[in-house]
């Protein structure tokens, strides 16, 4: 069985046509009136910042989300994709950044899961399954045994298995969601060779990537998403790098960020040559009283990992930290909290609040040393502390004894921030402080962050949103692949400069 046989000569008629697709989540409009076309034998790049709506679109295409409106045409016929099965039936398959295959199953089982070949008794025909899987893998030059367990494969090999799976279901539309994010240079080349073969086989490919060089290397068409809208689409050979960057970030950056003028004082925190064996290398920075330092980069640039090491969650392999002129050895988060460094993690739900606990207990948790006497907790003190910060953050709750799990996302975020402020820190690290919260809450968090700086706190803000970085930071450090890729002052900073530093796009820099 040779699955690589080329079909008809590639036409430029789109095989997939989406128009007017909208999707709203409570409080967030994820997609509004989005259009996308995919052509057989061609690769279309889908470009956009985090939160632009790319993954929502992928989930609609793979039948995981249902759009609120709009139409999807395949081969000119209107279709609906009510389930993942239905999408697969229509020949749509997705290869994700982290493959969603089964670690404990063999390569052949992964390729044929859900559509295993059967023998005449209705039982799984293992011989046929292994033979066909081997044929497909041979077709894409993937020297992988069909009996290997998936967990023993590298990420690049897993991608090959995912591609083989796509071929096994005779997929005509292949979505690749940042497939190169975790690949080495050589593995990327190999992946591109396979994408070329898929193109020749007449597949329509949607390629999602942050890396511009890759986009130019293998894509013919592009679509740019921004804030849930499609802001541009067309042939890649008709646009320049800079056009794309502008489309991607080019919203009105002067939109209201309530940054107040803060007096920037003496250096509070000094980090020198911070290294980690696998996540980041030689990161150094100085942070002053009243300053907001933006930490920008692509997802996986090592920003959060650096901040977590600073907070004592992981240990750095080299480097020193000086806080208010004194050397500081952070061995655990509790050391960092005692010294006055706190970290508000990115995912509130998973890392921030303890949702079964009351608001009071959450806020007082890192401050129990202060609120208790002789190791005995004092409820009244805890309530006082919680009340103080709940008022300050304008927390909306019926009662402070209410479990945090019953609050809205924005209010949960306030509890998490309040819990850290109650420790009276000198340095506060906010990791993606407004990710996944609605616009109203965003403005409140920004105003509050600004207020903290005015009050003399030193703030490190990790953010992947360019407007937020530009609007809130006094200074920006850009990280790329675990290293510092540039430091920028607020004055004269452009979105293009940030994207260039973060993506390493030299051509655009020229």
């Amino acid at each position, binding site marked *: 069985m040779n699955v690589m046989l080329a079909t008809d000569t590639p036409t430029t008629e789109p095989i997939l046509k989406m128009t007017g697709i909208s999707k709203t989540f*409570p409080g967030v409009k994820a997609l509004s009136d989005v259009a996308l076309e995919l052509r057989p034998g061609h690769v279309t790049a889908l470009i956009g910042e985090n939160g632009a709506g790319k993954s929502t679109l992928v989930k609609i295409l793979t039948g995981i989300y249902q759009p609120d409106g709009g139409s999807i045409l395949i081969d000119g016929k209107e279709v609906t994709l009510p389930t993942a099965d239905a999408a697969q039936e229509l020949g749509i398959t997705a290869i994700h950044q982290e493959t969603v295959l089964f670690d404990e199953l063999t390569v052949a089982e992964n390729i044929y899961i859900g559509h295993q070949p059967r023998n005449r008794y209705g039982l799984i025909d293992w011989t046929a399954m292994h033979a066909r899987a081997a044929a497909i893998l041979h077709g894409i030059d993937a020297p992988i045994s069909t009996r290997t367990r998936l967990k023993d494969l590298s990420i690049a090999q897993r991608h090959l298995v995912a591609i083989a799976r796509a071929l096994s279901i005779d997929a005509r539309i292949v979505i690749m969601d940042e497939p190169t994010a975790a690949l080495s240079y050589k593995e990327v080349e190999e992946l591109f060779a396979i994408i070329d073969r898929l193109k020749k086989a007449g597949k329509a490919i949607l390629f999602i990537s942050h890396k511009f060089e890759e986009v130019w290397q293998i894509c013919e068409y592009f679509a740019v998403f921004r804030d849930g809208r499609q802001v541009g689409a067309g042939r890649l050979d008709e646009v320049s790098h800079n056009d794309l960057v502008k489309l991607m970030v080019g919203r009105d950056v002067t939109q209201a960020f309530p940054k107040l003028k803060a007096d920037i004082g003496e250096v509070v925190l000094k980090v020198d040559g911070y290294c980690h064996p696998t996540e980041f290398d030689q990161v150094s920075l100085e942070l002053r009283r009243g300053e907001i330092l933006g930490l920008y980069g692509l997802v996986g640039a090592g920003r959060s990992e650096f901040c977590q090491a600073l*907070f004592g*969650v992981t240990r750095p392999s080299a480097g020193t930290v000086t806080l208010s002129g004194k050397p500081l050895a952070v061995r*655990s*988060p*509790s050391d*960092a*909290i*005692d010294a006055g460094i706190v*970290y508000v*993690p990115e995912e509130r739900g*998973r*890392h*921030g*609040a*303890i*949702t*079964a*606990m*009351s608001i009071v*207990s959450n806020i007082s*948790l*890192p401050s*129990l*040393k202060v609120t*208790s006497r002789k*190791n*005995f*907790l004092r409820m009244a003190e805890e309530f006082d502390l919680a009340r103080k910060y709940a008022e300050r953050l304008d927390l*909306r709750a*019926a*009662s402070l*004894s*209410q*479990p945090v*799990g*019953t*609050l*809205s996302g*924005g*209010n949960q975020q306030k509890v998490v921030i309040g*819990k850290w402020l109650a420790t009276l820190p000198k340095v506060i690290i906010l990791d993606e402080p407004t990710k996944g919260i*609605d616009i*109203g*809450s965003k403005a409140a968090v920004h105003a509050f962050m600004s207020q903290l700086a005015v009050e003399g706190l030193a703030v490190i803000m990790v953010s992947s949103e360019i407007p937020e970085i530009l609007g809130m930071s006094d200074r920006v450090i850009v990280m790329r692949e675990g290293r510092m890729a540039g430091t920028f002052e607020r004055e004269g900073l452009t979105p293009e400069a940030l994207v260039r530093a973060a993506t390493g796009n030299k051509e655009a820099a020229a």
Partner: protein
Amino acid sequence: MNTIRSLLARREALLVLACLLLLVAITARFPAFSTPRNLAGVFNDTSILIMMALGQSAVILTKSIDLSVAANVALTGMTVAMLNHLVPGLPLVVLILIALGMGMLLGAINGFLVWWLDIPAIVVTLGTMTIFRGLAFVESGGAWVNAHEMSPAFLELPRTLILGLPVLSWVGILAIVLAVLLFTRTGVGRAFYATGGNAVAAVYTGIDVGKTRFLAFVLSGTISGLCGYLWVSRYAVAYVDVASGFELDTIAACVIGGVSTIGGVGTVGGVVLGALFLGIIKNALPVIGISPFWQMAISGAIIIAAVVINARGERVKGRIILRRKELPL
């Protein structure tokens, strides 16, 4: 709107109600069952279960489980009984300290394996449960230590009456009071809840999750050690299969009492009521003349009913979240 607490309050009220209904039903047939004297006897009978369920609940709160508690009782109980027999001059105080120390050590071994080697608690304690009982066999050679081989002081302490209640009951009451203080009024107790409620968030809050679990296992082990002495003294016999299967009773008491099996939720009151509920059933069924096999089936059915009630509680919580979501921020 105090959802979880009111839910738990409801659950505790529910348990009190269930215990009362049970008592009424039993009393209808055997009026003597509900005399204060007999009820005090039931409490005394259940004291060991209450204590060990409290230790178990600390472990479950941290999202772990301790299957080795009953084996700990057997090993510690056998050890102190043999020491009492072989070294008759050893004062009872020393034996009790040995029981506490040995239980603590066994708990620390569990805690250490869970903490440092990062092995799941169910696997660790499944292993140590077998090892502890095996050691009890090794040290005794499978022989029993019978009442006549134990010193009078060793046997009498749990039965000694103070203000009309036996010492065993007083120890149980003391354990309840200490557990309330530990769970609600100390940082360690708060750390139990935080660790089980959201381990990652607890780490970010400066709580050492591994150490917290370690302490929970040490607590559970220490209580089991003390109960090892109380058990062999109360039943006046030590043998390898002492308290066989009792670990499941401690877990059942926690589940019936509303301790979430995935950690982070539970109260001392609930655990005590859960244990008492089981204690009443255990004491009443033989009186009514139901065979031990039915007793096990009934206990099992009650545990499943408790889990169903827990699940229903979770669902109610979900609805409340949605209702709040509609409100403006």
